[in-house]
């Protein structure tokens, strides 16, 4: 590249040569953003190690498995077995998935395939608006409006179908079911958005082929769209699950905060996230209790990490082969 022919005569600088030091901003920028990226990784590593470090007090006393799977959480006796919390988290999330995912998928199908074209974007916006309502507002609404409103219906259901396991018995005001219902509403927009995105990757040829062969709309959905987007829908459901597991404030308000495994769907319970939000205030002076709450956070973190890994696997698999870029508004995915 030492092109002498470009060198201007009279000893002046080449038009292609930059003054020394001109590369400095380039070097600074490249190093700057690289260092930032490294710093993020270090921060996440520190975050993880710090959580583990602070949890050791309670893990030393009860063991990792003892802490996670013992069914006894009693602050006054300083006994911390988080099973009621883990079970509560799993029950409420399962209810949320069972109610939220079918509705979300149906909504996505209706918006992408069935509704008149001019309603498509208004409906999309309305469903996404569900994500704009903060957790605490859902909690307030559910606690003040939904809990008293649904209680008679729940009691009727519990009495009528008491032969079904985990249904009969006394209905508490705040309970697993209400928490699951609120979570279902909260995960609906994200599951619906990702499902819609996945369905938009179904090749039009497949749909047209099904219709040309005489399929009705529903048969086209069943034979062309659903098989193609199955992995993506699973991924969306897992992302929703990750959300439901980590959701805190709305659940704290409507779960009843009783640290035991409820004997029915309509019993009071507790979740990992709710216990942290509720008890940290009293835990400040008690190192063991504090450590137990941090360990609960660690279990929560590992649980969501695991669920999100599976979700990522499915969504990546669904997106492979289709070169469609993400169309969900970036903030929605979180």
């Amino acid at each position, binding site marked *: 590249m030492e092109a002498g022919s470009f060198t201007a005569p009279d000893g002046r600088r080449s038009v292609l040569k930059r003054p020394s030091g001109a590369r400095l901003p380039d070097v600074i920028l490249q190093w700057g953003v690289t260092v930032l990226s490294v710093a993020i990784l270090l921060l996440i590593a520190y975050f993880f190690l710090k959580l583990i470090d602070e949890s050791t007090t309670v893990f030393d006393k009860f063991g990792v498995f003892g802490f996670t799977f013992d069914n006894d959480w009693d602050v006054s006796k300083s006994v911390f077995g988080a099973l009621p919390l883990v079970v509560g988290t799993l029950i409420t999330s399962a209810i949320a998935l069972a109610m939220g995912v079918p509705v979300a998928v149906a909504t996505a199908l209706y918006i992408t395939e069935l509704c008149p074209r001019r309603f498509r974007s208004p409906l999309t916006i309305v469903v996404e608006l569900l994500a704009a309502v903060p957790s605490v507002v859902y909690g307030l609404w559910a606690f*003040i409006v939904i809990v008293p409103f649904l209680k008679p219906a729940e009691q009727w259901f519990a009495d009528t179908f008491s032969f079904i396991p985990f249904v009969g018995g006394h209905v508490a005001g705040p309970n697993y079911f209400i928490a699951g219902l609120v979570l279902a509403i909260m995960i609906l927009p994200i599951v619906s958005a990702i499902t819609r995105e996945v369905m938009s990757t179904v090749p039009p040829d497949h749909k047209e082929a099904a219709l040309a062969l005489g399929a009705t709309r529903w048969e086209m959905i069943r034979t062309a769209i659903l098989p193609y987007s199955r992995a993506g829908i699973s991924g969306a459901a897992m992302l929703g699950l990750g959300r439901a597991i980590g959701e805190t404030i709305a659940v704290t308000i409507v779960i009843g905060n009783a640290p035991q495994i409820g004997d029915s769907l309509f019993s009071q319970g507790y979740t990992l996230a709710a216990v942290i939000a509720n008890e940290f205030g009293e835990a400040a002076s008690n190192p063991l209790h504090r450590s137990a709450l941090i360990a609960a956070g660690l279990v929560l973190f590992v649980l969501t990490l695991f669920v999100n890994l599976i979700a990522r696997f499915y969504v990546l698999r669904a997106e492979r082969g289709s070169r469609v870029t993400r169309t969900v508004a970036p903030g929605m995915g979180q």
Partner: protein
Amino acid sequence: MNGTDAPVLPPVSPRRRRTDRFMRGLFGGATIVAIVPLVLVIFYLVQKGLGSWSIDFFTTDPSGKFFGDPGGIKSAILGTIEMVGLATLIAVPIGIGVAIYLVEYGKRGRFAQVVRYFIDVMTGVPSIVFGLFIYITLVLAGTGGTAFAGWKGSAALALLMLPIVTRAGEVVLTLVPDELREGALALGAPRWRVIFRIVLPTALPGLITGMLLAVARAAGETAPLIFTATIVKGSSLDLNGPMNSLPAQIFSDVGQAQDRLVARAWGAALTLVLMILILTTLARVVSRRSRLA
């Protein structure tokens, strides 16, 4: 459809037709079911929230009195704006910096993939766990001389916003056509000028959209704030002291189960939802202005 010619396809049997109609109805019904909660939430927010709005509501702090006037939400509004503002100042430059690294330097390299992966991991971390982390590292340690502080709340919110800003930034920076970069480089512009004068301005609307969505999400977060900035009554401009916020105020008012306080919670909730709606609408308008696909 068949015209006068013999039908090419056998006619749709009544059973298939019924199934089709039933399933369409089911999907339409599910969409209505999905919208009902939104309508109900908005209805109650407006009905109960507007009732507690008044000039005093926005200009007085919570009184903390057990009887009588519970006071307004001035400190909560102020605190939310201050803390979210500071969190934005922290998260947006870092987030966009990382996005620049991923798109302009790291590309498909192994290290960039690792960074991408961990940004994804951050996205999935429950907000309360971030709050817990800041609680352990900054609040318990008493960094800055105080236990609970507004800037610690901001730090927790920034952790939450960072992956949102980065992901959004990466998406829009990738959309900037390579021809623009190559054109600028061919004209002799150094890399940093290409990034600052060509790439970032082109992607600006998208970056702003990502930022606004992150701000909207941070504004509604309660869990990370109750451990870090805590819930107080008075207004404060001191980010190194405890600070109130709208979500935290609502949370504490619901927990009290007193009608006066619940009324204040509705008013505060309406305020919060309106703030978030304005931000998300702005984000939508800005992204529509974008010249990128």
